[in-house]
């Protein structure tokens, strides 16, 4: 082999990172086979689209009151051509509210999930890899956060802090990183025992190198899966908090729509007002759950091929 040929091929070794067992090929392959997961992806893309372009899609201002030809407020009207999802007791357009609620839901879901997985995965990897005292201390902290009931805590927190979506993101993150930390830790524990980690140690790899180059890539599928679950959890949490009346009054959200619907006593009669925001939540969360099914097979090969 001549020298020049060698050097071009060398370059390809340092740059090409094709991995036939990699995460995305398997995931894409699963999407092809699993129709539900494909439906999930399509639905999620739809929701993300609605979320990004919410301000263009929403036909009206969410707080705008609508009047009919006679100049009367269009109070509690069932769905019609003008108002696809009907109107509220003070004549507001529910469709616009639901569309704008998408934006809030996705913002909270994605940001909280990022924060939660970042903290949780870091703690999980450090605890699982270090073992000993570090692990014991971190896991006692995790136990502590497991002992705090989520919704009651957020209720208390909103008594202390001002209601805003940032505080909701903070509260969700504060109390849910523990789940990710626990799961990541237990997977790290089993990876850390595998001989290829021992081999890296024998070769002289530093702890940080082992964590970043050996352990992290092997837990990434699990982290992504947990991130997807966390998006759902955060969206659900935001909706619940807003429904209880502790949401951000400035940001229209699905939970808030239902809150007003409930406290005004209209949840018992105006079915369109009750049903539509709830359906939006169900569809968005369902789309992500469907996608996680394809992810799960990447994380746990035992579920594959049977």
């Amino acid at each position, binding site marked *: *082999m001549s020298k020049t040929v060698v050097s071009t091929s060398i370059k390809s070794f340092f740059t090409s990172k094709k991995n036939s067992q990699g995460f995305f090929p398997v995931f894409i392959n699963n999407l092809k086979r699993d129709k539900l997961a494909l439906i999930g992806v399509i639905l999620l893309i739809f929701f993300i689209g609605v979320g990004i372009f919410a301000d263009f899609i929403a036909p009206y201002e969410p707080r705008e009151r609508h009047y009919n030809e006679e100049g009367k407020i269009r109070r509690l009207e069932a769905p019609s051509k003008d108002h696809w999802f009907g109107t509220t007791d003070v004549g507001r357009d529910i469709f616009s509210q639901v569309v704008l609620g998408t934006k809030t839901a996705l913002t909270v879901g994605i940001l909280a999930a990022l924060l939660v997985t970042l903290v949780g995965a870091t703690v999980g990897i450090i605890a699982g890899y270090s073992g000993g005292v570090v692990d014991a201390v971190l896991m006692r902290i995790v136990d502590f956060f497991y002992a705090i009931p989520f919704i009651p805590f957020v209720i208390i927190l909103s008594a202390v802090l001002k209601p805003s979506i940032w505080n909701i993101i903070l509260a969700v993150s504060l109390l849910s990183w523990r789940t990710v930390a626990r799961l990541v830790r237990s997977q790290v524990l089993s990876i850390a025992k595998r001989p290829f980690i021992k081999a890296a140690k*024998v070769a002289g790899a530093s702890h940080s190198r082992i964590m970043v180059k050996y352990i992290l890539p092997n837990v990434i599928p699990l982290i992504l899966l947990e991130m997807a679950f966390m998006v759902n959890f955060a969206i659900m949490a935001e909706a619940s908090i807003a429904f209880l009346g502790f949401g951000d009054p400035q940001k229209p959200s699905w939970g808030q729509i239902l809150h007003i619907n409930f406290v005004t006593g209209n949840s018992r009669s105006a079915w369109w007002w009750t049903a539509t925001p709830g359906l939006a939540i169900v569809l968005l969360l369902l789309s992500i759950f469907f996608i996680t099914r394809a992810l799960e097979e990447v994380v746990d090969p035992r579920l594959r091929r049977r």
Partner: protein
Amino acid sequence: MDTMPLIQIENLKKYYLVNNGIKDIFSKEKKYVKAIDDISLIIKKGEILGLAGESGSGKTTTGEILVRLQEPSDGNIIFDGHVFKANSKIEEKKFRKEVQMIFQDPYETLNPRFNIFDTIAEPLKIHGVKNRQDIYDRVIKALEIAELKPAEHYITRYPHELSGGQRQRVAIARGIVLEPKFLVADEPVSMLDVSIRADILNLLKNLRKKMGLTMLYVSHDLSTIKYLCDRIAIMYLGKIVEIGNVKDVIDNPQHPYTKVLLSSVPVADPDYKRQSIIIEDEVPDQIHLPEGCRFGPRCPYSTEDCKNFDHTLFERRTDQWSACIYNEEELRK
């Protein structure tokens, strides 16, 4: 052959604290598993030492301590003239470069997310080799020494595309790419099919020839030890019970435990009648070790004196040491 010792182990101990539950916090007496209990060994330059024993004998722990995967509880390791005391962290990186290890399970020994090139280049990168051409050349050379030919055929592969034997060769290539002085091989062939085991054993033999490697071969399989090693040490419950040249120990075992082990190995010859010594097959647990000779309770020759035995190795034949108070003739009685 150079007879300078490369590695000298002095009074090495590894105890694990047993945590049995809340009650133990209050009891003063601490319980330990004595995985290695005061062993001393010399491995000469260019020598292959076999370390044999059943599970729980401490042979793997010894290997892992030698490559510093575990820290000893007590004792010294003198490597090439440098003393490493228990819990010292001096010159770790330099030490890492000179000591490598091969593991048992070929399916778990390679990072599934690294291709073969990355796997073998990794130790070089860790030790600061930056020149790409240099890395490439050394990876190819290591693959060729490990007899993965043509080397170019393998470098882009991922572990799951290779057979067990090929993976073990990759692991060996990774082990030798830094050109170490000492290699610990922990049961490197026990999970491989018989038809290719010989390849790996011959490869290890050649490494010594080509690179002057010194090796510790840890195995429960006495026949592969006999094939590969110069000397053998037999371990039982954390102690060395017999040590000597392979041929001497296998043909003329001095310690009753060695005799039992050898007589238990099945032989692929229907006409060969093994003389077999039947003993109790339950090994005492490692926390409540028997007093005196640890093999005493199972030993067909044991007497009252064995209970007072303070572990010592006696030179029973030239360069063959046994930790039994009786010599061959006394045992025969």
